[in-house]
């Protein structure tokens, strides 16, 4: 369904007043199948977030192709919805419900009434009913992430792109959110591309795990989630 073929990504940064060209990933290839929970795992700076942004259409590869359902990814679009690590991804001037409705009317071009119905449905499914009319700044970090996930799912994208969505949460909330995400995956069968630097999170979430090396990110291994344990992943990641 999503094919990433030999993708090399570069971006510019400014360090001590000099422009640097950073190669984030080098010729990365993988295939994501329908209802995969595809995890990209690697150390900090292996270009996994950049890779996800490229799939999202925010960055175009210098080499290689990203193909979703047979057509090239060129720009951001509502068929690939992002969930970020940052808590400020909900629009602060809208309540939780309005955030979802706006995503549906603006992104999915649904008429308002239908959008509202679907928003309420997703709010209930995600156990957010009490907070439907709250503004984001009144929610806890976990609730904000839950609302962001509800918003993304309501848009019914072809693929959900999650960039370390639980990394800023405390350990207890994180474990709970991972559990809920798995439950949602089982119930609705959507496809996820999930980026993380946590080995244990990769094992919990992933049905398929892609290991990237550091600087620049290259594919080290692609494994089945069910056959992986921490020791094996650790060995593959840290032993050359």
């Amino acid at each position: 369904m999503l094919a990433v073929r030999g993708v090399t990504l570069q971006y510019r940064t400014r360090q001590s007043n000099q422009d640097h060209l950073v190669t984030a990933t080098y010729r990365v290839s993988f295939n994501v199948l329908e209802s995969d929970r595809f995890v990209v795992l690697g150390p900090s700076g292996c270009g996994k977030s950049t890779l996800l942004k490229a799939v999202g259409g925010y960055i175009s590869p210098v080499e290689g192709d990203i193909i979703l359902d047979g057509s090239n990814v060129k720009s951001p679009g509502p068929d690939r919805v992002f969930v970020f690590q940052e808590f400020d991804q909900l629009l602060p001037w809208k309540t939780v419900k309005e955030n979802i409705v706006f995503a549906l009317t603006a992104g999915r071009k649904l008429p308002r009434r239908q959008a509202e119905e679907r928003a309420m449905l997703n709010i209930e499914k995600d156990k957010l009913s009490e907070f439907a009319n709250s503004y984001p700044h009144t929610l806890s970090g976990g609730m904000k992430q839950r609302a962001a996930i509800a918003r993304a799912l309501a848009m019914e994208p072809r693929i959900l792109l999650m960039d370390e969505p639980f990394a800023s949460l405390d350990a207890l909330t994180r474990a709970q959110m991972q559990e809920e995400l798995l439950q949602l995956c089982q119930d609705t069968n959507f496809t996820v591309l999930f980026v993380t630097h946590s080995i244990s999170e990769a094992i919990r979430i992933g049905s398929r795990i892609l290991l990237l090396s550091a600087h620049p990110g290259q594919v080290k291994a692609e494994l089945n989630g069910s056959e992986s344990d921490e020791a094996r992943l650790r060995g593959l990641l840290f032993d050359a």
Partner: protein
Amino acid sequence: MPDRPEIIKPIVPTDFDVVEKPLGAWHRIWNIGAVRKTALLIALALLWEAYARWLNNPLLFPTFVDTVKAFFADIASGELPKAASYTIQLLIKGYLAGLLIAALLTAFASVTRIGADLLETLTSMFNPLPSIALLPLALIWFGLGDGSIIFVLIQAVVWTVALNTYSGFRAVSPTLRMVGQNYGLSKVGYITRILIPGAFPSILTGLKIGWAFAWRTLIAAELVFGVSSGSGGLGWYIFEQKNQLLIPNVFAGLLTVILFGLAVETFIFRTIENHTIRRWGMQS
């Protein structure tokens, strides 16, 4: 290490009835900003009255009571309301025109790089320039009339509003921008539905500063030349009363200027703030 037994306890309902206690009546009243500010204003008025009585020179510094009397007398005679309404309609015209131009400049600046350069250059040139300094030129270009005052007002409003809006746009977080792009909004939709609300705290700051600049400039411009097309504004009123040595009326005119400023600040801007950035948690 001594051998310690493990302890597991059931949670029993607590027996205090009060977890949160409401504040006392005096505290609650003192917590209302309007009450504190009114108390300050009363104290200032008392100070004024005391100093004026001690000085005992109504030509230099009339008492608070005399000023209030003159104020109400001129309201009753219709002179002050007429001057004030003339000034306010000029202010509204100039302010709105300024906002329109600022919006166009900012839109141009956020779409193209040369537009951004233009805005940055123009603001660094004209923002520090007191707009009243352009009045002599404006008089030559537009003649004695509303036109030249409005020109000066626009110059007072445009730069701060444009500068604040533009820097607000640039400060919208990358995450929010990416969320906006994710929805596949059009360029106009992206500006009006993501950038403007995202930059609203600094847009509002720009609007407030712009309004204060405009109000100052307007009164000053009217002081310099008031009678245009037969009816003078507040600045002219102050000037005229001074010429007739009606000092309490001069003070009454100044009081009107201040009162209008306070009213705009508390009724308009405070209301907008409470309904937007405070409710959204973008300002505490």
